[in-house]
């Protein structure tokens, strides 16, 4: 939507869900409204010129800033030289794509992307659902609200701030090393971000720290939709807290979980950009570098535009297919509880 670190990433999951809903309503309207003949269409256009004037300038904006860059995909099939015009570029077909799949670094980057987005997916779901269930069991409303407000805080902080905080915590002089030393668990201070193999764990912990509170919103909303009489009936039957959670709350939010889970599969190549970029360094780059960073490094730092574009075309096309499949699956399995 924007550039590589899509600021709307965190909403994208819900956007796509919305859009099913949107598309459906549009279809039905479109059938009714479809102009019979060009004449009627232009008549309506003039009649509704106020609405046209209010929206068409932004459609032009959209075409310039969102659709025109797609033309730049041609760069991925050329040996692009910035100084030459489009007609003078040398066309090389799929050369760059072939190069990518023979490139050890690219394959490692692909592995990192998949591993980190899977961590993001699984950990994100498990922690958010757990927290939502725990919050739902809190009967002290003020306490509940305080926990919620506090847990939203890291979501609103920038990754720059978050990365700075995470680095301070993980520093050899930071609180974690401090605690471990005091508990006599370690003899020597650990340089956490200097150990490549640990990066994925640090990444997982970081995204959970930042977004777990935020991600509970949708589950808490789903929980409030559960019929309270179910709980009452269960209580009469003598069900305790765990049984009610297991047999009523969890099944109650299952449709939401299913749909969000399927949706998120569409973002398997979107493992984010900022945490990896800001927490990554020379020592952990074998594990931190993902597709977006690869595109940035080749494109902007090394001016290898063509290779960089080829990598991002690969990413967009795969994501598009995944999203398409995920959307259709979600629509089929979403039942009537959603939308």
């Amino acid at each position, binding site marked *: 939507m924007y550039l590589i670190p899509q600021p709307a990433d965190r*909403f994208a999951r819900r956007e796509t869900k919305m859009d099913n809903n949107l598309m459906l309503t549009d279809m039905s309207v479109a059938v009714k409204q479809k102009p019979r003949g060009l004449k009627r269409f232009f008549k309506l256009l003039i009649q509704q010129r106020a609405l046209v004037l209010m929206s068409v300038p932004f459609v032009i904006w959209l075409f310039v800033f969102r659709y025109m860059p797609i033309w730049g995909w041609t760069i991925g099939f050329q040996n692009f030289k910035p100084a030459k015009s489009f007609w003078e570029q040398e066309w090389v077909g799929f050369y760059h794509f072939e190069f990518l799949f023979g490139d050890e670094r690219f394959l490692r980057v692909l592995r990192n992307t998949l591993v980190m987005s899977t961590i993001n997916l699984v950990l994100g779901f498990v922690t958010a659902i757990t927290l939502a269930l725990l919050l739902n069991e*809190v009967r002290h409303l003020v*306490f509940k609200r*305080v926990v919620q407000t506090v847990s939203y805080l890291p979501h609103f902080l920038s990754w720059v701030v978050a990365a700075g905080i995470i680095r301070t915590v993980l520093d050899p002089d930071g609180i974690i090393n401090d605690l471990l030393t005091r508990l006599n668990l370690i003899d020597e201070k650990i340089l956490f971000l200097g150990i490549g193999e640990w990066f994925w764990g640090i990444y997982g912990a970081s995204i959970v720290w930042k977004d777990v509170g935020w991600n509970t919103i949708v589950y808490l909303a789903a929980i409030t939709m559960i019929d309270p009489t179910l709980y009452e009936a269960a209580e009469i039957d003598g069900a305790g807290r765990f049984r009610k959670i297991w047999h009523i709350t969890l099944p109650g939010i299952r449709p939401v979980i299913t749909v969000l889970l399927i949706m998120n599969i569409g973002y398997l190549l979107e493992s984010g950009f900022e945490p990896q970029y800001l927490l990554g360094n020379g020592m952990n780059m074998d594990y931190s570098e993902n597709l977006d960073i690869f595109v940035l490094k080749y494109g902007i730092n090394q001016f290898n535009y063509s290779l960089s574009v080829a990598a991002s075309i690969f990413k967009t096309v795969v994501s598009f297919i995944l999203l398409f499949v995920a959307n259709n699956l979600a629509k089929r399995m979403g039942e009537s509880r959603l939308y």
Partner: protein
Amino acid sequence: MAEMTIEKPRRRRVRMSLGDRIFDAVNYTLLCLLMVVTLYPFLNTLAVSFNDASDSLRGGIYLWPRKWTLENYKFVFEEAAILQATITSVLRTVIGTVLTVFCSAMVAYTISRPEYVLRKFVTIAFILTMYINGGLIPTYLLIRDLGLIGSFWVYIWPGLIGVFNLIIIRSFIENLPDNILESAKIDGAGEFRTFISIVLPLCTPVLATVALFTGVWQWNSWFDVFLYNSSYEHLSTLQYELQKTLSFSNASNRSVDFTAAPSQGGLTQVTPYAIRSTMTIVASVPIILVYPFLQKYFVKGMMVGGVKE
């Protein structure tokens, strides 16, 4: 939709079994732990920002400064580059938010009108951009060709309208009672008049949500500064300045040798660690002051995208 609230009055339980009590104790402990983990790093940064810079290097600062000082803040605010960056951050946040909210609301209004002929076209044109985008390099080249590099407007135009914002405003407008809009039309108000004087005021809750999301995004952005304007110092932002201090030291905080060059006064003792902590606080305080007050709005905004009856 509008009546949905997160907190529903819970069923009252008169008797509590032992199991319930244990459950509650564990639950409350876990949630308190979550709050500590969330807040501690932040409070620690706050303490360091108020502590003497060279003293902080000895470590052992937890929640309270050992040697109180305002020198770090003084240094940060007297540094011309940081001051300039703060002004740019404020400007892009204010201008960007106002324009985004207004323009998104306007487009959302048009695609909420069932009779609008271009409704489907406009909606689909926007939604398609969620699936497909040009990517980093093509966008960069476009921005360069448009002459936006080295300009303040590169912070505003490329992100003017987000699809998510459009969708939540649209659903909100569609849920407004029909007769309000109809009566405005009957009174002879044109579309634009209706939008300005009726729809906008009625949409305050959703616009507050969009304003919060946009404002936070604008305030937190650093990548566009890095990408387009890194060689234009007067267009730097606070987050980008902070990001640059992060890349000073790589994996470790305090072990880096850094001879601070106090620009004024000569006696000021600063370290990158202290400056970074101070800038972190400066960069986060505006957000911390705003978001709790908009909580009920954004929770609803997120739910529009989540669950619907």
